[in-house]
């Protein structure tokens, strides 16, 4: 009997053959068929050649990571067959280009695998150009699944519309050729997709895209960025929408300029951001301190990649946590938040801009390559109410009569009413030097202490409910084990909870988003409660030194004995998290 609406598919090929584009298209087709989809990629740092893969999982219920073996391998080259056939389930299929891959059976050491050779290149050529062989492959995959071709046709139309009807028609013809070829020649594949109709449309979006969407919604109007993987797609997406949303997108000469520009824009009253990875963030560090001492709101998206130095540019890691928390000399308040999935990226991007203005200090949104480039199905975010809060920003009207206004006036919560350049009575100096309430340089010891204390108080203004960790899985009372994670590990962790559940294990997840301000009370309470009720806690981190464990210890005095660390520059898998949890439980 066929498996309905559950599919794992891997697409592989050299860089430059559209593996990612096609993968994302296929994922979107599955989503439009009413399924929930995960799409994620793996690629080396080069433009042509190499080996890229895109992985898709689709299911009827919400999912957040790839789990299990693949039903289908879409091989755009011979290497893909060679490298990945072992990852196929029993009875899994390989669609390959019979024009270029000869005798694939010689590569495969199993007889259960269904080999579907299609003359992808020939069919593409007939439709208008060999370059479309990937579109033929996509059509073939749709045909195998007996997915309604109209879904793909509609998508191709909208994607290629800007290139004119000739390109649209050629792509549709190419896809149709692949679709018909496979559908006619193959009977029922083990997986069939039956369109679920009448569902409210959902979004298929990755971490970077969700950050951009959140930033745009939050009213960000100035972006200064220097390209660096894996943050670069933020620059591209912003630039592509600059006119539509009235955003000045400035590609800068370096990350130093980018960070100093957002400091300038922030001081001038415009919501401003930059995006980078660890290397670029290293160059921004001095400006971070400037924003700290001059109390300037701005948002920095830092998508971690495997370091140090150039490291592994297109691979993932969670090793910049303590760096983000401590970067720049001296002491000043900063906010560091690490969203766990694309929806949280959207929400935390909005929070970041609100918080930056609320506490007048820089906010670092810590992503990683895995999160930046993993797409999930999420609800249509337009249904989520959003509030723009600008803190103590003075209006032009208020400033009209504000004679003697002091930009850095002392206050109980440490936050001063904030004027911006150009407003009446706004004359002040925003300075990198320690200063008095007017911004004038001061080296007076009493003023120094007062200013350090003033700035330090500000973070308390961020409400607890915003920084609280989130929990999932078994309840506090019934859980047998507490699994702690932060950032993108949430995605495979949620799937691990399901796997453990299937095996009769009640596991609970604590996902920590805010590293600064740190939700010490909530975290300590969860840890001590776990200690008393079952005594089993494991922390999972994508670094070699358990940085979050150090932070938890520093902030709560609680040391989590067991850390499961992955630092091979690859993301966690749900299966390994579940296995580690089982091992810890002795089951």
């Amino acid at each position, binding site marked *: 009997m066929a498996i309905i609406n559950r599919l794992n598919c891997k697409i592989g090929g050299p860089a430059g053959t559209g593996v990612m584009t096609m993968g994302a298209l296929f994922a979107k087709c599955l989503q439009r068929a009413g399924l929930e989809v995960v799409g994620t990629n793996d690629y080396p740092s080069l433009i042509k050649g190499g080996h890229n893969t895109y992985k898709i999982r689709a299911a009827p219920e919400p999912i957040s990571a790839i789990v299990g073996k693949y039903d289908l391998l879409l091989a755009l080259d011979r290497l893909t067959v060679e490298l990945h056939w072992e990852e196929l389930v029993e009875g899994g299929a390989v669609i390959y280009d019979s024009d270029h891959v000869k005798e694939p059976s010689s590569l495969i050491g199993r007889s259960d695998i269904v080999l579907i050779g299609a003359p992808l290149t020939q069919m593409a050529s007939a439709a208008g150009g060999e370059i479309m062989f990937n579109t033929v492959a996509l059509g073939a995959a749709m045909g195998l699944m007996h997915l309604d071709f109209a879904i793909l046709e509609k998508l191709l139309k909208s994607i290629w519309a800007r290139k004119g009807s000739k390109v649209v028609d050629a792509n549709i013809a190419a896809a149709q050729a692949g679709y018909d070829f496979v559908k006619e020649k193959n009977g029922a594949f083990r997986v069939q997709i039956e369109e679920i109709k009448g569902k409210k*449309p959902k*979004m*298929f*979006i990755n971490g970077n*895209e969700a950050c951009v*969407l959140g930033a*745009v*919604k*939050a*009213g960000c*109007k*100035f972006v*200064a960025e220097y390209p660096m993987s894996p943050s670069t797609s933020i620059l591209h997406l912003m630039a592509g*929408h600059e*006119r*539509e*949303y*009235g955003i*000045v997108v*400035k590609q*800068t*000469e*370096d990350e*130093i*300029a*980018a*960070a*100093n*520009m*957002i*400091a*300038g*824009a922030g*001081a*001038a*009253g*415009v*919501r*401003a951001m930059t995006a980078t990875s660890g290397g670029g963030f290293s160059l921004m560090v*001095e*400006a971070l301190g*400037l924003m700290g001492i*001059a109390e300037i709101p701005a948002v920095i998206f830092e998508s971690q990649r495997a370091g140090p130095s150039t490291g592994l540019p297109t691979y993932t890691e969670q090793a910049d946590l303590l760096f983000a928390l401590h970067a720049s000399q001296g002491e000043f308040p900063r906010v560091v938040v690490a969203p766990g999935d694309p929806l949280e990226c959207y929400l935390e991007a909005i929070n970041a801009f609100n918080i930056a203005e609320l506490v007048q200090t820089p906010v670092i949104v810590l992503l990683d390559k895995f999160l930046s480039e993993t797409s999930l199905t999420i609800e*249509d*975010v*337009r249904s989520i109410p959003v509030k*723009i809060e600008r803190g103590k920003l003075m209006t032009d009207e208020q400033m009209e009569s504000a004679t003697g206004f002091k930009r850095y006036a002392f206050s109980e919560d440490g936050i001063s009413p904030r004027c911006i*350049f*150009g407003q*009446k009575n*706004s*004359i*002040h*100096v*925003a*300075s*990198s030097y320690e200063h008095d309430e007017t*911004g*004038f*340089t001061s080296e007076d010891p009493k003023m120094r202490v007062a200013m350090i204390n003033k700035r330090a108080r500000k973070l308390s203004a961020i409400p607890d409910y915003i920084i609280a960790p989130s929990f999932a899985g078994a309840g506090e009372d019934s859980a047998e084990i507490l699994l702690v994670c932060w950032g993108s590990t949430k995605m495979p962790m949620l799937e691990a909870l399901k796997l453990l559940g299937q095996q009769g294990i009640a596991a609970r997840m604590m996902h920590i988003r805010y590293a600064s301000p740190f939700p010490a009370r909530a975290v300590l309470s969860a840890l001590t409660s776990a200690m008393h009720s079952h005594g089993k806690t494991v922390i999972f981190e994508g670094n070699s030194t358990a940085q979050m464990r150090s932070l938890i210890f520093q902030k709560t005095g609680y040391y989590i004995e067991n850390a499961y660390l992955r630092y091979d520059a690859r993301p966690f898998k749900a299966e390994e998290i579940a296995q580690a949890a089982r091992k810890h439980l002795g089951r």
Partner: protein
Amino acid sequence: MVSIEQLNSGHLPSWCPGCGDFGILIALKGAIAKLGLEPHRTVVVSGVGCGSKIPHFIKTCGFESLHGRALPPATAIHLANHELTVIAIGGDGDGCGIGLGHFMHTMRRNLDITYIIQDNEIYGLTVGQASATTKKGTITKSTPHGTPEDAINPPLIALAAGATFVARGFSGDIPHLTSLIAQGIEHRGVAFIDVFQPCVTWRKDLPYSLYQQKIYKLEEAGHDVTDWEAAVARARETERWPIGVFYKVQKPIYTDQIPFLREKPLVKADISNVSIDKFVEEFL
């Protein structure tokens, strides 16, 4: 209309007596007063150094940024609110040493801002090291056997990078410098002004009298400010030191290329409820 006196911040400058920065400060105030700029709509953006303390001594808005980084925030303040007058200012260490990259890139962008280099050919605040504009062979604390490198020529760099207004002034000729700064601010596009400025403490070998002896005024020499090659030739002179406007042409400015800024400055955009309807549809 603001007077020069009204531009006093109430804080006395902390510079050495006789420092060229005093002349630059007076000229800057004079230019602002002459043009009738509103102090709260004028932002003086500096780096870090002796001269970069200037925002504290003039009653306008100010941004005293990091060493070498006056131009990026100046750029962004201008883009955030292009109705403000933005004047970036910093020393030769700031703009030609650590900040040289920003200097060149800012010149090629033709933003409508003014950039003044207080050029005394020495690092003052760090007590006397060679800077990028220190002439080859000069003995300083960091080059006791003479600087081994050729000096950078700021006007030449600005010309090479595509600046649309390039001038040089002298802190010892305040009326002339005032006029140059006013012209620079009025110029629609990026205006660069290199200012010869004696450092009476660390460059006793470069006194006012030497500048007075060497300089001559371009406007009295029949120089054509629209001739780029003539400007380059003048900027390269070493025997006599020209001051005045080297080059001045009109080109579209950076913000001319951003259509939505024609309606209103960025800072005036209503962000209370940005509609992302169309954007969301891309992901459905």
